[in-house]
């Protein structure tokens, strides 16, 4: 069969029009028969905060180091937190994942070195956790906004969005963040079925127990601390934390960096302060 240019263009044009028209027709039929529009959600459905939830303008914590005289108390606070939140225990520093831990004065407060401070305080283990800074450097560096500051001051970590770049770990001056080098489920001997684990390749840290605050409960470490840790609203002048901070001398970790930490440490007795 021979065909000149004119015939070819005609044929091509007709078949293109037929092709497009045919597809559109098929799509229309499909749309009507198969793809029904999904039913819309009822209007009444909304999301709100439970009336029993604890609320604050800026959550803060006061840790009274003078009351930490028993190694068991540290362990109780750490175990309470780590068992509730399914924090894996790898048993070696290299893979360590921690939400709350201890270190000595020299390493916790490297800027406030004082050779003549009371021996008892100098050699004491300090209970450390995420400081939930008012000006959190981890939030500033996060490229996916997986970590962010909530309106109530809690620095939260969204595991669904974390890509494991570990910028936040480099930015945090307190070492509060841990990376999951391995699947954390392998290192859990016992799990709390009410709380998820994390997955390999995300960064995790203390959340000030947001899941407990919405149920009206104090954070797990506060509950386990026998009164040595007080938790409350730093913006409310009548809160317990503000009353303590108004009466006693307190220090914060590396406050000179301008991160405005929300965790305060009491290192002297009321009579000496």
């Amino acid at each position: 069969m021979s065909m000149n240019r004119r015939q070819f263009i005609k044929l091509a044009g007709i078949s293109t029009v037929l092709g497009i028209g045919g597809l559109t027709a098929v799509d229309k039929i499909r749309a009507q028969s198969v793809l029904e529009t999904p039913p819309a959600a009822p209007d009444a459905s909304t999301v709100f905060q439970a009336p029993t939830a604890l609320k604050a303008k800026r959550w803060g914590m006061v840790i009274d180091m003078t009351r930490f005289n028993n190694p068991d108390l540290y362990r109780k606070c750490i175990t309470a937190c780590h068992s509730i939140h399914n924090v894996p225990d790898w048993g070696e520093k290299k893979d360590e994942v921690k939400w709350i831990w201890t270190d000595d004065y020299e390493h916790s407060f490297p800027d406030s070195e004082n050779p003549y401070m009371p021996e008892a305080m100098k050699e004491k283990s300090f209970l450390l956790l995420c400081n939930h800074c008012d000006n959190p450097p981890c939030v500033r560096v996060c490229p996916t906004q997986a970590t962010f500051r909530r309106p109530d001051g809690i620095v939260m970590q969204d595991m669904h969005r974390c890509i494991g770049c570990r910028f936040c770990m480099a930015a945090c001056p307190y070492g509060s963040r841990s990376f999951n080098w391995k699947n954390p489920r392998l290192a859990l001997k016992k799990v709390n079925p009410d709380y998820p684990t994390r997955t390999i390749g995300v960064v995790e840290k203390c959340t000030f127990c947001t899941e407990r605050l919405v149920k009206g409960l104090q954070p797990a470490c506060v509950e386990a601390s026998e009164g040595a840790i007080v938790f409350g609203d730093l913006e409310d002048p009548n809160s317990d934390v503000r009353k303590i901070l108004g009466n006693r001398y307190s220090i914060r970790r590396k406050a000179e960096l301008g991160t405005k930490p929300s965790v305060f440490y009491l290192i002297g007795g009321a009579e000496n302060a």
Partner: protein
Amino acid sequence: MYNGGKIIAGLIIFVAFFTFPFYYNIGKADTKPEPKLDTPVIQSLPASERHCVESKEFMRTSHMQLLNDWRDTAVRGMDRTFNGMNGQRYYISLQNTCMKCHSNKKEFCDKCHTYMGVKPYCWDCHFTPKEQFIPKEKES
């Protein structure tokens, strides 16, 4: 045609091979997945309360959007209470609300997900009622 017999025989074999998946799966692919709702918790509910947080039709088509909304409001927002169908209130939690009733992940979630070939990563972190004590041994 040279070697006609061989060519035709070859063609028949080729066509048979090529179309085998279609014949093999006739009738199978069309079987509708039927997620099961017969968990003890659902069975123990009185008939008037035997409903999900939203209507069946809505959950069937849009549960993924609802779960995404729940995830964002629980983790990124401050609110963890959901005003559901009939004004009933629910604590926003996949593990503690959804899976308390739908404790049969294999017969409920997986049924459709396998059929559709979708692999949601919920279970990398969130526990399911039965397998919560069995750690995954896949990754080293």
